[in-house]
């Protein structure tokens, strides 16, 4: 069963002459353990799709299910709980709180969910350790490099028992080595059983995904089929 399902979802902003359909009858399924990339140009509806999937915005029509539960049927508190416990977000500009250290940023969603401060920080520290920046825990965001800040954001998104990771252009302005590092971390989370959706306009980022969905003018127009083994590409090249 899909952990995230968008069923015929549309989102309309404005009315009458100013009406804009940001996404139009989009359906998407993401299983636990899989990484799906949504690719499309600016204005194609990628970010809207992600905010609706993450319950940050409501669909105008259609249904969104997370872990089999319809967001439409869920109370405000239920959605807030879902966002604290189940869904992790990674944004292009990291969205870290400047007044909190790295470890406090990562611990925050756990503390908001009622986990004791000491235990939350211990869990946050081990999440930072796993991403190779355990020694940066006491630093504030402005004392970290761009790559380190994005690692903190990823740690915050996957800390605890979160099983749905939603990332919007997660490599932002990072250089290619750091971008690759970000995708490796997201892929590692998927290998541990997380379902992930990454929206991007960059093919190099999207190519880390199991499946790439192409969005144009709010519609899903195409998707890749699962690639054959990597060796096949070399054998094919060698035959030429």
């Amino acid at each position: 069963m899909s952990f995230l399902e968008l069923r015929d979802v549309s989102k309309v902003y404005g009315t009458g002459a100013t009406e804009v359909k940001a996404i139009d009858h989009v359906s998407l399924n993401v299983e636990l353990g899989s990484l799906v990339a949504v690719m499309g140009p600016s204005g194609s509806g990628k970010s809207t799709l992600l905010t609706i999937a993450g319950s940050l915005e409501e669909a105008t029509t259609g249904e969104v299910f997370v872990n089999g539960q319809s967001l439409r049927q869920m109370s405000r508190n239920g959605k807030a709980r879902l966002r604290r416990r189940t869904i992790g977000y990674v944004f292009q500009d990291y969205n870290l709180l400047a007044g909190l250290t790295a470890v406090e940023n990562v611990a925050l969603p756990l503390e908001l969910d009622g986990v004791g401060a000491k235990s939350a920080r211990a869990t946050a520290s081990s999440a930072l350790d796993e991403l190779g920046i355990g020694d940066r825990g006491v630093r504030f965001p402005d004392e970290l490099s761009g790559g380190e800040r994005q690692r903190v954001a990823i740690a915050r998104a996957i800390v605890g028992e979160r099983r749905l990771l939603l990332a919007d252009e997660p490599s932002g302005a990072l250089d290619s080595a750091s971008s690759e590092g970000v995708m490796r971390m997201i892929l590692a989370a998927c290998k541990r059983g997380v379902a992930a959706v990454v929206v991007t306009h960059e093919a190099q980022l999207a190519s880390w995904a199991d499946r790439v969905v192409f969005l144009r003018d709010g519609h899903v127009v195409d998707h890749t089929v699962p690639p054959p083994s990597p060796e096949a590409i070399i054998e094919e090249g060698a035959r030429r």
Partner: protein
Amino acid sequence: MSVRHALLGLLVDGPKYGFQLRQEFEATTGDVWPLNVGQVYTTLQRLERDGLIAPLDGADEREDQQRGFQITPAGEAELSQWLNTPPDLVAPPRDELVIKVLVALRLPDVDLQEVLQVHRRYVVELMQQWTRLKEDEGELDLALALVVDAELLRLDSVVRWLDAAAGRIKRAELDPPVFDPTSPRLRRRLAVRR
């Protein structure tokens, strides 16, 4: 690709036999470019003919696979010149993909965005395959990593061109341009490059 110069490069650190050169060639190129034995010996014969390599003492009389070769000073000079000469990238583009899109542009019943998407999907699928090779970084040697990066960046530039073309075509549909590919001025400018 220049097998000839790659073999010269492999002879810089000492004399070698044909089978050894073949193995080292494949390892150097990340095992992505297999080479058949016949190609190695034919290339060695030509390099010898051109004075860029020389057989080891007494190797003249032996079978191909038992002949060892060393690089000559002329071979070293040739290798150095090759390494420092950029490959010819300035030829006028006659990329098949570009031509397909240019032809589609003239056909009234073709959905250009669909044509672009077919190619975009194919290229992204190829990129997914190359990226799979990078997944297990521990198994990736430096040569293979460089080859994979080169392929991914090349394919990425194709997707970027498709995206740019999609944007340009969309804008042109909304606001038809006064672009005339047969304009004498443009043709003259392109002719200069031929």
